């Protein structure tokens, strides 16, 4: 896998030149005017939203841990002056730092978050700055400290409860679901639970079956929880700030392999009040032939696959979910109604997963009539994660799987 940097604005403008109605391969030009109308509204608003955000973005580096990057030098002249390169870890760190400073009630607890600077160094420097009261090292007792965190939220504090990995949240899941997610409902609005649970989710590298599970579907299943899954640094920063400011329990699913990946962040994104709204997906790449919907690290794989496919004349629209629950069905439907084809991509297991939900929603909604082929899911293989490298590599969705699926769906 290689990293390739390109100017987003250039791509955006290139695609934008094409009229929407004739863009799909099936050549459909007639459609129910109601849906076209609402679709145009949606796409226009998402375009302008994208434009205002992306116009200030320069080149960025996507996915992968390999350090080879190809930069299109000629695009730098269009880059605004204040872009800063921030990796996902630092974006999370800065977001927490700023929110701790902004609101006295915010505090962080978890294993090794204080004196060790965080098991993955996400909370580096925070204990030094804020001390024992606001950055708390806990014993290895998830059920207990998750419960303590929820209780603190009941009483008016705004805890950030870190799970060293989301695998360990299974020890505490009762507190997340029964104590946090359901309480506002059970109390008929009397007791809000302004808590953020965060930590790395999904597969890493060589950590085997008990440390590699994706919990997006598990938590995404539960009403009362908000579940977010950032991909890049902008997502990480904006969504964490939004999560901390939200008065509801938020499950914040990070990705260990993304922590060290740098992205360019604009001045606007670096503002202290910059938030990414929870519940809104982002179209990372405009396309016309097929929609790829993904979350977290797989978004990068989708963009890489899109680059490869573009060489063969296939233009993929890549939707970054950003939020698992509430699911931004509108953005997905708008995209599917534009392209007529859908592939979902996720790291988790297929059965009862995020992709399954997206396909079901598309089936049940207006976008179904626009599908020219069945929607398809690219997922992790339906097995516990093996340790050996060759087996692990074949257990997770790869870029070639995405490309293969796209071609199958487009009947190429």
């Amino acid at each position, binding site marked *: 896998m290689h990293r390739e940097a390109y100017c987003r604005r250039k791509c955006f403008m290139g695609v934008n030149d094409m009229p929407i109605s004739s863009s799909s391969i099936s050549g459909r030009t007639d459609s129910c005017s109601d849906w076209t109308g609402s679709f145009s509204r949606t796409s226009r608003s998402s375009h302008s939203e994208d434009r205002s955000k992306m116009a200030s973005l320069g080149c960025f580096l996507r996915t992968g841990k390999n350090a080879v990057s190809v930069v299109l030098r000629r695009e730098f002249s269009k880059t605004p002056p204040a872009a800063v390169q921030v990796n996902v870890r630092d974006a999370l760190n800065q977001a927490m730092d700023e929110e701790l400073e902004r609101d006295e009630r915010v505090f962080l607890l978890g294993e090794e978050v204080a004196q*060790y600077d965080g098991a993955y160094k996400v909370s580096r420097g925070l204990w030094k700055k804020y001390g024992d009261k606001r950055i708390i090292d806990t014993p290895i007792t998830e059920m207990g400290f998750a419960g303590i965190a929820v209780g603190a939220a009941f009483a008016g504090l705004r805890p950030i409860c870190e799970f060293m990995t989301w695998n360990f949240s299974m020890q505490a899941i009762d507190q997340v679901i029964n104590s946090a997610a359901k309480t506002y409902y059970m109390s008929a609005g009397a007791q809000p639970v302004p808590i953020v649970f965060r930590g790395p989710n999904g597969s890493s590298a*060589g950590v085997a*079956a008990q440390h590699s599970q994706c919990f997006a579907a598990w938590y995404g299943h539960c009403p009362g929880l908000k579940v977010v899954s950032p991909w890049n640094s902008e997502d990480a920063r904006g969504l964490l700030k939004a999560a901390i400011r939200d008065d509801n329990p938020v499950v914040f699913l990070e990705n260990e392999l993304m922590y060290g990946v740098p992205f360019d962040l604009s001045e606007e994104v670096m503002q202290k009040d910059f938030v990414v709204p929870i519940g809104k997906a982002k179209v990372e790449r405009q396309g016309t032939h097929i929609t790829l919907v993904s979350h977290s690290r797989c978004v990068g794989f989708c963009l890489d696959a899109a680059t490869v496919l573009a060489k063969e004349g296939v233009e993929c629209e890549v939707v970054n979910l950003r939020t698992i629950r509430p699911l931004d069905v509108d953005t997905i439907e708008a995209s599917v109604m534009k392209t007529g084809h859908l592939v979902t991509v996720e790291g988790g297991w297929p059965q009862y997963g995020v992709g399954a939900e997206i396909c079901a929603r598309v089936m049940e909604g207006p976008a179904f009539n626009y599908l020219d082929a069945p929607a398809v899911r690219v997922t992790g293989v339906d*097995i516990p994660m093996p*340790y050996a*490298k060759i*087996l692990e590599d074949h257990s997770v969705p790869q870029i070639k799987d995405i490309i293969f699926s796209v071609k199958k769906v487009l009947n190429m």
Partner: protein
Amino acid sequence: LLQMLLCYLSRLAQPQVLRSRFFSLCVLLQKVDLHRLEEGPPLTSTLTREEGLKYYRTMQTIRRMELKADQLYKQKIIRGFCHLYDGQEACAVGIEGGITLSDHLITAYRAHGYTLTRGGTVREIMAELTGRRGGIAKGKGGSMHMYTKNFYGGNGIVGAQVPLGAGVALACKYLGNDQLCVSLYGDGAANQGQIFETYNMSSLWKLPIIFICENNQYAMGTSVERSAASTEYYKRGDYIPGIRVDGMDVLCVREATKFAAAHCRSGKGPILMELQTYRYHGHSMSDPGVSYRTREEIQEVRSKSDPISMLKDRMLSNNMASIEELKEIDIAVRKEIEDAAQFATTDPEPPLDDLCSHIFANDQPFEVRGATPWTKLTSTS
């Protein structure tokens, strides 16, 4: 009394007496702390030459195997998590000296040493670390998930292994086979709620379980003072009798285990042992191990309490073995590790056919969904 007399006599013996005369040594052990026990394990232990050489060899094998794993990890031939046991060898070897292979044992992720003492070979352990088909779990488990007969891993989730161990003990009692289960956990896990639940049920049902807390002073980067309101882990079982011993002395560990095993087999129910020990490496290979403790501390333990040195000095100063003999063992161990490492780095990775196998036991082969709906894989038992 006879034992005490023999001890006295052996101490009077001239050092230049032929070692072949002294095939048995009586050792005075450090005092043991007791909780809810009138009597504890004996304060003397008889070490035979054969035992001494065996313990020496096994501890040295564990030591060298872990150091080799360190090397291979740094070369990126071992990936993921790797939690090394060097410094704690006396625990694994001493425990095994107090039970038999028909007894059961379960521990957490710092498990390479136990995999060896429980019957695994260095070859299959190292090949598992490197993820090859010759690995003890065919390359599918990795460092934290190694199993042998009557050894239930190798468990990645802190604390979960303890109730599992009680379950094994339940089965022993149920089947009436006079076996017991040793259930290990660290000072970090000792605060886990499920351990207290297990204490309760094991006591209620008088299960033949020995709880052993390997207290190496640090849970990842958190010292015992910062994580436990009570650091007297041997007392934390409350109504369960407990003993605390020096975990760096293989004989202390052995005597304590023998005592605990007798307690269990007599039908009295569970007993708790705390072994005071130390790990030289950090928590795992991604932890340098010096941000929360000083190098001086590590060095001090190494020079004053190293389990292998302690046994070696004991045997040499009592003429149980010669320096040359022990050196020969060192060389043999080194060769065994080198051969194992050679195997572990050249053995091929598991075949792709193995990707989906072992999902269900004793079941028909079935189709497994791959990364795309067109990738159809098969699972066999």
